[in-house]
């Protein structure tokens, strides 16, 4: 009996002690620590370069702030989904965000991004390459700070162009690329998967004809006008259709992304490929590991993105990452200070060498160290100057998804019908008349 009365008392004592301990732990966690303010940087996956920069800038700030990174999902649309949800919910932890350029207008329009202070804008964009700068703007204002910029080159096998007798110092057209592959029964490295890369490709084909997919990208959804139902759209679709119907991208084109097209290009049937510069570092690494033939690297050359018209300069795709600050961040001033550190030209150069992502700053290309690792750095800089962003509109996701649905599989693309259908589809979706 005595025992049964004693147990609850002891239980209460233990519970009280436990509660006090838990409260102490919680309170110590909630209370302001003595250290500097912590800035959270939401980063896209890379080879550890952004984490290293966070560390470097934390040290350089001499105690003014500390940057911790938080990893976003692997693909750009999923990164956008997470960031948009957090921003819409007024998440104050979004101090710095690595943003893919096409999704910036959607976040800037409702005021989710903190305005870039004039002096920061001036200092961080004084030598930014034209294409990269265009991708950081919305409504003629700089809403993010360009960090690194990406673009595509035409990669080719020296042995193939030699046999075809092509002069790669001269601009190359898609027609030449297709004809060479047909003549030599080789395959082309393009991205035919239903994904963002499809829009990247189509946009480059349209922009290379001095036109844009949207006639008025800054208009509200119901008033947006598309340009695909035109001669320009037909010619763009013709290139895709030709490659699809002739099976020039191989039987696996429907699931071919950037990585798969690189593997195809590295194989015996590889001839040409349009792709981002990561393929250079990846192919070198494969050669060193013995995964591909050691002589393959010497057989690879690069040139500017293919032209659609022989007389019109190509407009290569534009990618990369810009840095934005959340409107609800409590550390905006420090966040911009940290961004200035992150995008310093020397840091961009280092990031290029270690992670393979090209700088957006022209000065960053002056470092002679680049030449050893990236002998095509000058070609990348030239391509970035000519690069054209994808449609800059808050409704980019709808437009891109509609394009992906209509232009895949590429074997089903028709130069006459697909652009017209895509135009009508986009307009109906934007007016809320049908689902996507």
């Amino acid at each position: 009996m005595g025992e049964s009365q004693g147990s609850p008392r002891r239980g209460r004592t233990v519970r009280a002690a436990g509660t006090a301990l838990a409260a102490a732990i919680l309170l110590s966690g909630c209370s302001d620590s003595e250290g500097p303010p912590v800035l959270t940087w939401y980063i896209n996956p890379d080879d550890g370069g952004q984490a290293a920069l966070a560390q470097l800038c934390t040290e350089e700030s001499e105690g003014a702030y500390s940057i911790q990174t938080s990893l976003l999902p692997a693909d750009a649309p999923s990164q956008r989904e997470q960031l948009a949800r957090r921003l819409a919910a007024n998440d104050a932890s979004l101090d710095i965000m690595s943003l893919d350029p096409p999704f910036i207008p959607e976040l800037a329009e409702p005021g989710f991004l903190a305005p870039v202070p004039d002096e920061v804008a001036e200092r961080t964009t004084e030598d930014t390459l034209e294409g990269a700068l265009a991708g950081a703007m919305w409504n003629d204002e700089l809403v993010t700070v360009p960090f690194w910029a990406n673009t595509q080159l035409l990669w080719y096998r020296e042995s193939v162009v030699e046999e075809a007798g092509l002069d790669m110092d001269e601009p190359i057209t898609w027609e030449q690329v297709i004809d060479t592959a047909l003549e030599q029964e080789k395959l082309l490295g393009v991205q035919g998967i239903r994904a963002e890369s499809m829009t990247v490709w189509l946009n480059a084909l349209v922009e290379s004809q001095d036109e844009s997919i949207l006639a008025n990208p800054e208009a509200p959804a119901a008033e947006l006008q598309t340009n695909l139902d035109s001669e320009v759209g037909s010619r763009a679709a013709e290139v895709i259709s030709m490659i699809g119907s002739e099976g020039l991208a191989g039987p696996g084109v429907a699931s071919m992304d950037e990585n798969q097209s690189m593997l195809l290009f590295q194989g015996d049937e590889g001839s040409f490929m349009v792709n981002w510069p990561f393929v250079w570092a990846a192919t070198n690494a494969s050669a060193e590991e013995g995964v591909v033939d050691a002589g393959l690297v010497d057989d690879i050359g690069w040139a500017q993105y293919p032209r659609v018209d022989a007389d019109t300069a190509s407009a290569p795709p534009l990618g990369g990452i810009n840095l934005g600050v959340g409107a609800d961040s409590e550390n905006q001033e420090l966040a911009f200070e940290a961004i200035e550190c992150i995008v310093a030209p020397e840091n961009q150069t280092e990031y290029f060498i270690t992670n393979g992502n090209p700088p957006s700053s022209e000065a960053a290309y002056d470092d002679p160290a680049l030449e050893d690792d990236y002998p095509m750095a000058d070609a990348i800089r030239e391509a970035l100057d000519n690069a054209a962003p994808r449609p800059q509109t808050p409704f980019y996701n709808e437009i891109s998804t509609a394009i992906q649905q209509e232009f895949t599989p590429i074997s089903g693309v028709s130069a006459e019908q697909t652009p017209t259908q895509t135009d009508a589809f986009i307009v109906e979706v934007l007016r809320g008349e049908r689902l996507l």
Partner: protein
Amino acid sequence: MTTAPETSRRQKREAAEASNNKSSARRNGNGTKRTNRAKSEARLGWLIAGPAFFIMLAVTAYPIAQAIYDSLFSFRLTSPDDRSFVFLQNYMTILSDTEVFWSALGVTVLVTVVTVAVELVLGFGLALVMHKALLRIRGALRTAILVPYGIITVVSAFAWYYMFDINSGFVNNWFGWVPGIDSDLDWFANFGTAITVIMASEIWKTTPFIALLLLAGLAQVPDELVEAAKVDGASWRQQMTRVILPNMKAAIMVAVLFRALDAFRIFDNVFIMTNGAAGTEVLSLLAYRTSIGRLEIGLGSAVSVILFICVLLICLIAIKFFKVDLASGTDAKGGK
């Protein structure tokens, strides 16, 4: 040992209690005051079931109500200022879209019907094997059969995807001798082949679930009935159709209903393998893409509500027309 007078006293006490309960029930039926015991039992019932009831209300009823409310608005997460009440316009847009909505509904129904039918046949076979298996291997056999069901759907979807992927898969290589399969076959580029792989993965993954439910049904069939049928000279087929299956009807219908509801909400396999390409979009994926991908909360909620209504309809059809009795053999049926 219990003595005779004690037994008699206990019987009297029980009879008195039963009579008391009956009169109490009558009084309740007439709207008169309940006994203290009935009250305390009701209170105990609430204490035991109440927390679960309120948690269920919070995690299911509230989101459903919120989705129904949101579906009446034109609301995009990235333009909160443009939110406007549109009443049933979202539903009109969805129901008038033959290319996306009705196509997705058609694919969903196809997947549901085919997978449930195939799983029922395979599951019954597996249940028979498990039921008849020797005692020594029964445990190992049941575990082996249940392994696919224990694998997370996303993981199994990736496994099936990589098996059939034209770049990394081995299926084209292994089954190159089958007419129609060669190294150039991209399973995920065409509707027919893509939906076949999706359904095969779904069947492989969830057949054990049906087998388990049917095994429980088989165990409920009295051995005497089967023995009697055998003695009467019934063939194996007659034993099945006249004795075993009729006695398992409740278990079969519960298995079909649960799997049909599950199959109708298929998401993971399609999301991983095709992401809706090649005409394989299903309703759950459409709801996800609209709400999460497009951030169109209003329209996406309307798709979710329609999906919910479809699921309710399946339940209704099963319970009303096929007389599925979910409370069979439980106290919820009043102990009958």
